């Protein structure tokens, strides 16, 4: 009897010590929209996650679920991470907004970070990159480099995130070529290389000579390269797919943000926040400026410096929309964050009609 008790006590102690050491590790979870290898949006989150693992080594344990579609599947996946013991969960796409909120309400002790959305809660913070700053720079470059004066834009879904990118691009382009035109195709997917390639072909066939995209694969860059036209990469540096075509690329640099959030969580100081950083905080990084003459390169670098210094705002007022109405300026001399986040109009100079209006 005594032997049995001793054995049981030893087992409990052992189990206790094991679970204690497991509890010492902070578990951080990630929900990815696409495959890790998409070489775009999800890939950059994965790069940041690996930086996180490197930075914190054994004190944290990271997991990720990839290819989680936005919708009911998302809620299930997030809950799965919660039940697996993850205390800090990053959901990396706009469409995860409502599922994250739902799960956050169910588990007030777990902390959530949602990317590119606008709903938040006591235990759900949001973060985003001011990619539109990069888009403005791209617009300036495109305005200078486009011989035909027509840009081609491959959009994913007509949500404010994408609309603000289009507007910022056009405003940037208009600052060097007031007559710039743009053709927009909505792929209705974040990721379908075949469709993106088709869209790029269609835009180039219709006379565009600089391609920009808000979708995630290098297909459009590759088509532009094949046809000897110019393009901008998206999310990661796509120079490999367009060595003579890529002008620059907006690179999402999530690592510093993730590291700071995990630091806060480890110190017990995590608080819900609304983080929207851009070029200045290096959350948005531009790939090296290539395939352009030196004067355009200088202009791009000067524009970047001006944005970082706070001297140039992509959405500086007055902003006139497609219908000719001047948009109410709530941020002083530029649109305030709320207006940008809810942007659902095209600026003047874009001939296409907003889908769904």
């Amino acid at each position: 009897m005594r032997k049995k008790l001793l054995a049981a006590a030893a087992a409990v102690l052992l189990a206790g010590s094991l679970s204690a050491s497991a509890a010492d590790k902070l578990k951080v979870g990630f929900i990815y929209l696409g495959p890790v290898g998409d070489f775009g949006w999800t890939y950059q989150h994965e790069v940041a996650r690996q930086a996180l693992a490197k930075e914190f080594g054994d004190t944290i344990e990271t997991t990720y679920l990839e290819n989680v579609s936005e919708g009911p599947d998302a809620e299930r996946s997030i809950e799965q991470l919660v039940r697996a013991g993850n205390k800090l969960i990053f959901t990396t796409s706009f469409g995860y907004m409502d599922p994250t909120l739902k799960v956050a309400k169910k588990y007030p002790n777990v902390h959530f970070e949602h990317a590119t959305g606008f709903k938040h809660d006591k235990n759900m913070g949001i973060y985003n990159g001011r990619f539109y700053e990069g888009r403005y720079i791209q617009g300036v470059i495109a305005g200078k480099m486009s011989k035909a004066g027509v840009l081609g834009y491959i959009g994913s879904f007509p949500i404010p995130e994408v609309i603000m990118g289009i507007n910022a691009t056009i405003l940037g382009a208009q600052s060097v070529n007031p007559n710039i035109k743009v053709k927009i195709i909505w792929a209705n997917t974040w990721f379908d290389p075949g469709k993106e390639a088709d869209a790029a072909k269609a835009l180039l066939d219709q006379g565009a000579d600089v391609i920009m995209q808000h979708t995630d694969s290098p297909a459009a860059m590759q088509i532009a390269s094949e046809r000897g036209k110019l393009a901008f990469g998206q999310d990661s540096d796509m120079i490999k797919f367009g060595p003579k075509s890529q002008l620059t690329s907006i690179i999402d640099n999530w690592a510093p943000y993730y590291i700071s959030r995990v630091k806060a969580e480890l110190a017990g100081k995590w608080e819900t926040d609304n983080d929207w950083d851009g070029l200045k905080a290096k959350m948005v990084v531009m790939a090296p400026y290539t395939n352009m003459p030196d004067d355009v390169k200088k202009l791009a670098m000067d524009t970047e410096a001006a944005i970082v210094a706070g001297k140039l705002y992509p959405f500086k007022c007055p902003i006139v929309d497609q219908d000719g109405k001047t948009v109410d300026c709530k941020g002083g001399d530029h649109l305030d964050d709320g207006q940008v986040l809810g942007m659902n109009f095209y600026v003047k100079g874009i001939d296409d009609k907003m889908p769904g209006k």
Partner: protein
Amino acid sequence: MELLDPKFLESVILSILAASTPLLIAATGELVTERSGVLNLGVEGMMIVGAACGFGGAWLTGSILVGAIFGIVAGVLMSLIFALMTLGLAVNQVATGLALTILGLGISGLIGAGFIGERIALAPHLYIPGLTDIPFAGRILFGEDAFVYLSLALLIGVWWFLYRTRAGLVLRAAGDNHVSAHALGYPVLRIRLYAVMFGGACAGLAGAYLPLAYTPFFIPAMTAGRGWIALALVVFASWRPGRLIIGAYLFGAVTILQLHVQALGLGIPSQFMSSLPYLATIIVLVLISRARTGGSTAPAALGTVFVPDR
């Protein structure tokens, strides 16, 4: 840019041909498989594995042909799993096909993981000096890559095989009434095995087309549902090769044209435009079905399991 400018029209037609080719190849294989009585829902899985292996082969050896062969072999191997389950073990074909699709997506991710971020040179296009330079028709008829010509040759070959050879007649018989075919002494299971392997080979080739001739890189799930579209096209075609080619090019055409319409800036909701290829296929299917006297034209024994009684 003038809408009726021959150069523009030529470009559009070239895009349509390229977009329709994988659908045509995969659907041709599936047509043969279904004509023999086997419903293979695993086309998407076989296509994506074909894509992964095809890209791997081409990247490792630098040869598009080797890549295509790798893709075909990968498709055949996947189809052998399917054949073992449905023909050897008499498992339900629908469930097996779906399982194989999921398996294929997973395996392709595994195989392809090492190749992500790499790129290859696209398949070369035919160039006959003189013929290819003919404005407008030159590039369309004489300037395509090998896959496009192969897809057409394949379809014509399948048509000839099904309707002009004894073996094709026997295959159709196995699909229409396997009990009678078996009673007449034809090796139904073996016929179906060959048909399934052919379908797998075509699916693998169609999948390999995507990274070899369409977008020169591999990305997980790059088939993006084309396998399912190929399945639907077989039904659309009422299991006849002639209608299959119409269906494949119709779908490809609407897919490309909806993008062009968007780029023209007419303001039609993009979500509607994206659904247009599928809507067009359904509408055309309804229209041609009205000419039927009623009843399905599917092979009568499609999807039913056959266990020979000695």
